[in-house]
C-alpha cells in the first residue's frame, strides 16, 4: 500500500556526492526507512488475515454428546447410540449421524466403540444371542468390549476418544484406516 508510494520516492537517494545532494539523500534515506516502516505496519493486518488458518483452527471435528453418565451406569451389554457429528469446515459445517456403541472394558470403565468394521468398513451390529459383535459383510466377530475374536479383521473394534463434561459422556468421532493391524486415524 503505502510502501508502493514510499518506494517510489525512497529508493532514489542513497547516492553519495557533493553537499547540496547530501541533504536530499538524507531525506531519501529517511523516506525509504519511513516507507518501509509504514509498509511493514500496514502489512500486519494483511498477514494476520492471510495466516488465519495458522492462528486458529478453521477445520474442526466437534465433540458429540453421547448421553448422561447415569444412563450407562448399569450397562450389561453394548448399547447403541446415534450421535450427531458436527464437522466445521471454514465458514460451513456438516452435520451427520453415526452409530456408536457404549460398552465397558475389562476394568469396567466406559468405552465408546465406532460401529465401523476395521476390516472393510461395514457397520457392525451387536448380536445379543451370540454375545458378540458380528459384521454382516465378512463375518468378523468381536467381544463385547470390542476386542477381536475371529474373522478377517486384523484388529479389534476401534475405541473413540471420550471425555466427560457436566456428567455427560462426550465422544470425538474419527475414521480409522481399514485392513491394517494398528489403529491409524484418517480423519
Amino acid at each position, binding site marked *: 500500500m503505502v510502501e508502493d*508510494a514510499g518506494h517510489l*520516492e525512497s529508493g532514489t537517494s542513497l547516492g553519495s556526492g557533493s553537499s547540496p545532494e547530501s541533504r536530499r539523500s538524507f531525506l531519501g534515506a529517511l523516506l525509504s526507512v519511513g516507507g518501509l516502516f509504514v509498509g511493514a505496519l500496514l502489512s*500486519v493486518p*494483511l498477514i494476520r*488475515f492471510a495466516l488465519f488458518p495458522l492462528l486458529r483452527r478453521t477445520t474442526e471435528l466437534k465433540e458429540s454428546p453421547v448421553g448422561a453418565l447415569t444412563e450407562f451406569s448399569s450397562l450389561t451389554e453394548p448399547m447403541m447410540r446415534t450421535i450427531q457429528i458436527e464437522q466445521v469446515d471454514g465458514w460451513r*459445517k456438516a452435520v451427520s449421524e453415526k452409530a456408536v456403541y457404549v460398552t465397558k472394558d475389562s476394568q469396567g470403565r466406559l468405552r465408546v466403540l465406532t460401529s*465401523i468394521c476395521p476390516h472393510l*468398513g*461395514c457397520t457392525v451390529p451387536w448380536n445379543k444371542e451370540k454375545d458378540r459383535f458380528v459384521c454382516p459383510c465378512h463375518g468378523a466377530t468381536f467381544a463385547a468390549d470390542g476386542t477381536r475374536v475371529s474373522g478377517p479383521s486384523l484388529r479389534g473394534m476401534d475405541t473413540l476418544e471420550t471425555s466427560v463434561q457436566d456428567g455427560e459422556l462426550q465422544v470425538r468421532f474419527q475414521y480409522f484406516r481399514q485392513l491394517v493391524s494398528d489403529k491409524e486415524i484418517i480423519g
Partner: protein
Amino acid sequence: MHSTDKTDKDKGENGAPGLPQKGFWGWLNRRTSLDNLLRTALYEPIPGGARFAYIFGSGLLFIFISQVITGIFLALYYVPSADHAHTTVAYITKAVTAGSFLRSLHAYGASAMIIVLFLHISQTYVYGSYKGRRELLWLSGCALFGLVLAMAFTGYLLPWDQRAYFATAVGTNAVSEVPWIGESIKRLMRGGTEMGTLTISRFFVAHVFLIPAFIFALVASHILLFRKAGAAGPVNEDPYHPKQKSELFYPRQVLMDLSLTALLIIGLGLLCFFAPMQLGPPANPADARYVPRPEWYYLPIFQWLKYWHGSAAIVGVLVIPTLLVLAILALPFLDKSVERRPWKRPAAMGAYVFVAFSLVGLGLRSQYLDRHDSGVAQQLAKQRAEEDEYARKPFEPELSSASLVAANVTLADPLAAKGKIIFEGQSCNACHGDGGVGTAAAPALVGIRAKFSPDQLAELFKHPAPKMSAGGMPSIDLPPDDLKALIAYVESLK
C-alpha cells in the same frame, strides 16, 4: 553497458541524486535503467512550485492501490453467491483475524475515495487545470470518476445483507425508469427480472474483473496524459506555455503528497479500528417493510430520483443527467479561454457552486425527510437496532447442503424414516455413503427411483446382479416390513 560504467551520465541533472553506481544497486541500474524511471517519476517540473492544492491525485492513487490489495485479500474468504456471500462476509467480519479491520478498510476506503475524488475534481475545476490541450486528460478523468462510482455501486451489493440487497434493488430499479431500454438494462444488470444469485455473480465480475481492468488502463492513461501535458501550476499560470519558475516534484511536492497519504492511513486506521464497518442480517427479499437507503454518496441521486415520476420521469432520469454529463465531458472543448483565475470565471464558478450545493442540499434533504417522517425514522432505527443485534452475535457456520438432505429425509415419511435406521443398521451407508451419496466403494443411490421400481429394487436386494455381488454387495435378507421401509428410504433419496 561498459560506457555506462565509465561515464557519469547516470548521475542526475540539477545535482539530483540517483541510485549508487557501485555494488548491487549499480548492477541493477545497469541492467534496468531504474534510475531513469525514478528520475522520470520524480523530477517532473511543477510551474510555480509545490503546493498542497496538488496532493489529491496521488492520494487517489494510494487509496486505489489500498483498495486493490485489501480487495484481493478479502477474496481469500469471500464466495460470490446468494447462498454463501453473507456467510462468508460474516466469517471475515466475525471469525477471521484482522478480518473486520480489512473489510472496514475496503468499505471505508470507498468513501474516502469519493471524498478525495471530489476534492481532486474540485481543485482541477476551480484552478482551471483542464485548460490548455488537456481535453483527453479531462476525459480520462471523467471516465475514471464514472468507474469509481460503478465500483462503489457494484461493491456495495456483495455482502448481501439487508442494507446491500435493498439499496441495490432500488438502484437497479431506478435504471428501469429509462424509457424503452430501461427494463432490459435492469434485467441485464440483475441477470433476471428479480435480484438473486445471478445478480451477485454479475456484480462480482464487474467489481473484481471488468471495472478494475478499465481503471488500471485509465489510470495509466491519465498519468501518461498528465505527464504529456505537464502540471498546470497555479491559477495565474498560462495553461499552454507555463512561464513561472518551476520546482521538481521531488522532494517538496512528494512530502506534501505523503502528508495526505499519512492522514488517510491514520484516519482510516483509527476509524476501522474503533468503528469497524458493520454487517447487517442476511438479505431477506420477503421483508416488505424494509426501508432501503443507499450509501451517503448516493443520497443526492436517490433524493433527486424521488422528484421524478410518471411522464416527467424521463426528464429527471434521462434528459437532465445526460445533459449534465455531456456538459461536463465537453468542458475543455467549450471553455477554451486561457483565463484560469476563478474570480475571472464567474459563470464556471457559479455552475460549480450550484452543482456542489445541489448535491449537498439533496443529500441533506434526504436525511431531513427521513428524520421527520416518524414512520420512516422508526423503521430506520429498527433496522439499525437489528444490525447492531446481528453484529453482536457470534459467527454461526452455514449448514452444508449434504447435512440438510440427510435431515430432511427423516422428516418426510415415517416409513422412509424407519428405512433410514435400517439403511444405517445394515451398514448400507458404509459403502453407499450417508444419505446414499456414494463413496469410492459403491455407487450413489441418490435418484435411483428413476432407474428402478420398488419391485425391481426388492428383487435386486434379494438377488444382487453379478456385477453388484462382485463389488461386495451382499444379498439382503430382511422381514417384509423392514424391506419395504428400506425401499421407501432408498427411493426417497434425492
